[in-house]
């Protein structure tokens, strides 16, 4: 969420209301999206969540409750009419599929969501891996995010990222893990938890 504010500061948003659509998939990437939505609300954005397939994980269910109790609306369906999304929101957070996803299976509801997101004209912020991309090879014909937030460290497919801003959120990684995987992370400014690459 702090990166969303850096990439899309509140005063710069085109719509009158600071609305953001957060699309959450069924696994860990989706759960991170739920946490992101909650912090966006604390930061005075107006997030709306689309979370069609809910994870049974108790931790993820608690994240859902936290969002509900913060009065964050949950859409019951995602409009296929893309113009409705373009008109209602300033940006979309893509928290559908992460590095663990298996590409090409075309599982619903993710396939339908991605088919819609491919056509939105408002900026997309992807968490860790642009959903639908292969984590190593990247994507062709998939979604094209405006902003990518790599979690822990950039994945191979980040090399194919062509959007405006690429952030890394990995300040919490202990030094021995960084060394072991030869991550060579950049310097984080001050007390920031994200850094632009």
């Amino acid at each position, binding site marked *: 969420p702090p990166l969303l504010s850096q990439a899309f500061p509140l005063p710069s948003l085109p719509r009158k209301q600071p609305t953001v659509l957060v699309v959450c998939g069924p696994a860990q990437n989706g759960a991170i999206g739920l946490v992101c939505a909650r912090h966006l609300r604390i930061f005075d954005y107006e997030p709306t969540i689309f979370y069609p397939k809910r994870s049974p994980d108790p931790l993820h269910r608690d994240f859902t409750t936290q969002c509900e*109790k913060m*009065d964050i609306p949950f859409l019951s369906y995602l409009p296929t009419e893309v113009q409705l999304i373009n008109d209602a929101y300033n940006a979309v957070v893509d928290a559908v599929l992460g590095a663990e996803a298996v590409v090409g299976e075309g599982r619903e509801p993710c396939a339908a969501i991605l088919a819609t997101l491919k056509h939105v004209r408002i900026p997309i912020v992807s968490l860790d891996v642009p959903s639908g991309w292969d984590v190593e090879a990247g994507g062709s014909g998939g979604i094209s995010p405006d902003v990518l937030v790599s979690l822990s460290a950039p994945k191979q497919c980040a090399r194919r990222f062509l959007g405006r801003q690429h952030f890394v959120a990995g300040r919490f990684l202990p*030094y021995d893990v960084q060394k072991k995987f030869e991550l060579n992370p950049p310097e984080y400014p001050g*007390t920031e938890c994200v850094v632009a690459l």
Partner: protein
Amino acid sequence: ERGQRCPPGWLWPRRAGVPKGAPTPSLPRQEEAQAIDQELFTEYKFSVDQLMELAGLSCATAIAKAYPPSSFTTSQPAVLVVCGPGNNGGDGLVCARHLKMFGYEPAVHYPKRPSKPLFEGLTTQCQKMDIPFLPEFPAEAALIDELYGLVVDAIFGFSFKGAVREPFGSILGTLERATVPIASIDIPSGWDVEKGKAGGLQPDMLISLTAPKKAAMHFTGRYHFLGGRFVPPALQEKYALNLPPYPGTDCVLQLA
């Protein structure tokens, strides 16, 4: 100024458009603070881990703003983090880990450790970041002054009641004689949560978590920060916390 108490209205920065005669913020008493916590866990389903991580991060961030590493006169930006036997100690462990990532050299003293996975995990995380755990508390205040540029008091929090048990009585006695600045997490340890403590610890910094407690009215140090930016708006309204707005996406707010 040191020695002067802020009148109640001065605890909050002036909000644009707030009319004169607006209700002063409610400073929760001990039972209210506990009720808010309980509601966060039972109604909102936050886990202790989640809130403790955000609280500890707030503390480290506030410290970094008030005492940047470059301001230390010791050869390293060395910080002594003293952790008590409960959740305040847990906040201290999280704080120590983030201080390390912010470029400080923290050392932890954690004499009474609960055998619960939460605290064992936090301890391991610190150890794996090469944060030393001192087996003994420095015997003399002068030693603390020489070795450290700051002490983080994470001994007792807002649930503290009654007498101070050892080894914390002796520890607080030594800290009271130290001249190095002390940053207290939520409540200066040893203070009554509502009334304060005239002869006790006089920290230079107080990081109030969630909302300042009544004891904050007796705080005379230079820096008072608010942290724990996770209180849902509905909960703020229910308890009439009247929290001032945090700047941008900062997780701390400096109070007047």
